[in-house]
């Protein structure tokens, strides 16, 4: 078993954990981020609506509201510095009935209470001028210009790569199974060894209750609220460029339609309360519910042009609300719990606050002499023009080999995604970093090529290549294995 000795341990490599990691990576402190999953990216952090909210509809006066409202303006600078796909698409909240129309005033008022002052009322005609595909039943709407879209996985990966470039270490497939406070720090038992750390940050999302529980903190519980989504093919003539939001009801925020930074659209999510924290499956009923709901606002929605579905599990804390906690009797422990639905959007401000709290708790804040605040993404062949493509090919000849037809991804990009830190180690890791395999043919063409490249680059056999970590191998052996094994007596 391995042993690690660090200054700061962050449990959870989702949106919160990696944002905190990036902040802390500027300091001399030795840092380790661990995650029980096979890759960075988190759980809910990678299966969501990919929206960077403004906070216009957050509970006014709450910690959540402050975090979201303060994070939103930080995104364009960060995404520019770290080469993360980000777009200020804007959102239109659509009131399609008189009852919904009556709520708009309150929503506007709430937005102002949340210090989101740039929400504009729209007449029905203005809504339809902006987005002709919206239902002709529209009464009025609200424009929220700074609601934006981002690639959620790349948001996390880019921050992780930047933190790693500044010395941060990552351990995946590392589940925390024990945590005790010692005289001069913490002893953390994990599936990859024992970790000793002076400070521990709990950014474990769905499992924040389990981690705090190890320390005897049992005043809250976390359960899952599943959200199912459909992804709609960008070739569909929907023509929608804004996020389309429904008027929320007492029970639910409702189901939206959002463009993605890659040109597709998402519709969803459902809101299903579940005890099982690994219930990531989609359901027929849930998906049908999503389509029916969004069709109310976008009648031309054709569910025949879906590419894929996914489900994310929101961590729901009870008692609810964002909680950033330190405990007098557990010095060095920082718990970041209750972050839900707006975690991605709030992450940048949360990271700054977490950093400040750690410094208040005594963490030294001497900065490293040199750090980098920039990160270049993997140069993208698809988005380059012919001249740029030729340059890419000159820089790396593997750019001439297109292996993913739908997304025009080349071998060079797949190889680079494997050799980044933290890099892709499996098919899903490649898919999320360079988009190979998540287009409309869902790895129909590249289905064999990606595993071959992974096997080659990692020096493993094809049978050892997995979809998402150990236990998810895609092949079981060689073609002749069953006949050779089973029938000696013929």
């Amino acid at each position, binding site marked *: 078993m391995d042993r690690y000795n660090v200054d700061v341990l962050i449990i959870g490599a989702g949106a919160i954990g990696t944002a905190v990691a990036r902040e802390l990576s500027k300091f001399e402190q030795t840092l380790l981020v661990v995650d029980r999953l096979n890759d960075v990216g988190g759980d809910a952090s990678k299966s969501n609506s990919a929206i960077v909210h403004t906070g216009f509809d957050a509970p006014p006066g709450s910690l959540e509201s402050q975090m979201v409202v303060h994070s939103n303006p930080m995104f364009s600078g960060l995404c520019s510095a770290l080469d993360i796909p980000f777009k200020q698409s804007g959102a239109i909240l659509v009131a399609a009935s008189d009852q919904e129309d009556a709520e708009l005033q309150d929503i506007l008022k709430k937005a102002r209470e949340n210090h989101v002052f740039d929400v504009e009322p729209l007449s029905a005609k203005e809504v339809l001028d902006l987005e002709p595909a919206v239902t002709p039943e529209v009464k009025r709407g609200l424009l929220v210009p700074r609601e934006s879209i981002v690639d959620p996985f790349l948001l996390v990966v880019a921050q992780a790569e930047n933190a790693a470039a500044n010395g941060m270490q990552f351990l995946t497939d590392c589940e925390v199974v024990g945590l005790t406070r010692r005289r001069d720090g913490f002893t953390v038992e994990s599936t990859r060894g024992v970790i000793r750390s002076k400070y521990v940050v709990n950014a474990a999302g769905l499992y924040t209750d389990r981690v705090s529980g190890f320390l005897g903190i049992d005043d809250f519980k976390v359960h899952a609220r599943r959200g199912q989504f459909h992804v709609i093919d960008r070739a569909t003539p929907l023509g929608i460029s804004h996020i389309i939001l429904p008027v929320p009801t007492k029970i639910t925020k409702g189901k939206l339609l959002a463009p993605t930074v890659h040109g597709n659209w998402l519709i969803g999510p459902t809101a299903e309360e579940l005890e099982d924290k690994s219930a990531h*499956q989609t359901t027929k009923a849930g998906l049908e519910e999503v389509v029916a709901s969004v069709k109310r606002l976008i009648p031309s929605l054709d569910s025949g042009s879906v590419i894929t579905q996914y489900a994310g599990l929101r961590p729901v804390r009870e008692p609810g609300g964002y909680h950033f906690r330190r405990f007098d009797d557990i010095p060095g422990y920082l718990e970041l719990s209750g972050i839900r639905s707006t975690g991605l959007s709030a992450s940048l401000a949360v990271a700054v606050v977490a950093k400040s709290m750690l410094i208040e708790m005594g963490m030294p804040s001497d900065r490293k002499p040199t750090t980098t605040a920039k990160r270049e993404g993997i140069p993208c062949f698809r988005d380059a023009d012919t001249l740029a493509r030729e340059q890419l090919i000159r820089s790396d000849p593997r750019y001439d080999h297109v292996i993913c037809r739908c997304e025009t991804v080349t071998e060079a990009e797949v190889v680079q995604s494997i050799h980044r830190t933290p890099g892709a180690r499996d098919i899903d890791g490649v898919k999320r970093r360079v988009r190979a395999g998540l287009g*409309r043919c869902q790895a129909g063409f590249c289905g*064999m090529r990606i595993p071959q490249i992974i096997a080659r680059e990692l020096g493993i056999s094809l049978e050892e290549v997995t979809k998402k970590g150990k236990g*998810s191998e895609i092949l079981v052996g060689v073609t002749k*294995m*069953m006949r050779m094994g089973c029938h000696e007596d013929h």
Partner: protein
Amino acid sequence: MKTIDCTVAVIGAGPAGLAAAVGARDSGADRVVLIERDESLGGILQQCIHNGFGLHYLGRDLTGPEYAEHFIDEVRSRSITCLTRTMVLNLDRNLSMLAASSGGMIQIQSKAIVLAMGCRERTRGAIALPGHRPAGIMTAGTAQRFINIEGKLPGKSIVVLGSGDIGMIMARRLHLEGVRVLAVVEIMNCVGGLSRNLVQCLHDFDIPLYLRHTVTDIRGTRRLEGVDIAPLDDNDRPDMSRKIPLECDTLLLSVGLIPENELSRQADIELDQATGGPMVDQYFHTSGAGIFAAGNVVQVFDLVDHVTTCGIKAGGSAARFADGEIRHWADDSCPVRPGSEVRCVVPHRLTPGGDGPVEFYLRGDSVMRNVTLLLHNSSDETMFSKKLLAVQPPEMILVSLKSIPQNRGAEYTFELQSGG
């Protein structure tokens, strides 16, 4: 950047492309370039190691690779330039293409182009199959590639969703390799492929076929552990009270083929909603002047022999267009539409001024016995009728019309009627 000028460029070197290249050259095209994204020629045929190819066109019962080799030899003996490991990324209406190949980008300017990119498989996502998303779920074609080309087995116990030909053929293939094939599950009330395959792939090996059933749940978080299947009730909804759990580690999807139309869309070529591929006239000319299309990229064929016939015609037409012998249909052609009980018909248009018989390739919408195939014009006159013993969707209907008035303004409809 390397530039290539040619008379006819063929995109895709599967059976349609190989035939088109041969057809173009034999019709006098000077420089014919055959472009293939894979390392070798032959396209999908190289992984279709089973037999049944060439019964009509060559009078022989060949395997896919044997059929491919025959036409690869035909191509090689005709001074046709073959660009393998080359993917066309851009197609312009002015007949220029941009491709990525080893060594760099290539610009290709042609006088005529034949699209022969074949088709891709419908995915789990496209049919919104619910459940977990573990490893062990793949399309039948991907599994076929793994087993037959790479020599790797995708699983040890398999359920096949979809009883099209590829699904049944893979069921047999896996059974022969010692894999447990638990079931072939089909949502329709009849088998989706040829009867020959029902007998020789499923009956021969007692592989259970569940008609009017579908997969309702997928279990397993990392690797597939099992699926639930359930019969459809009278409202075509799964009857969960009669669901059957099947323990398996692999689910193969054989739920339909869709023409590969990335380039067609890019070049703004008019697509047929029924087939998903470009609309073509009897010369296989698409709505883009100088752009022809043949094979599965137009509509999914069940016999490769017909793909070859269409490919040769399309290549020949492309050569004649490059030579100025035939012109584009522009607004001049007569539409041919699928009517009652006909799902789709190719060609979609008849360009006036043509001579010689025209072959139509149709698919019926349902299983029917003792039918009459009729062709009407817009004045409801019957231009043609033919009695057929039986039709079923998996088997394409071929009909050759010797003479058909190709007058301007005419509109034609094919329909199938019960009763001889």
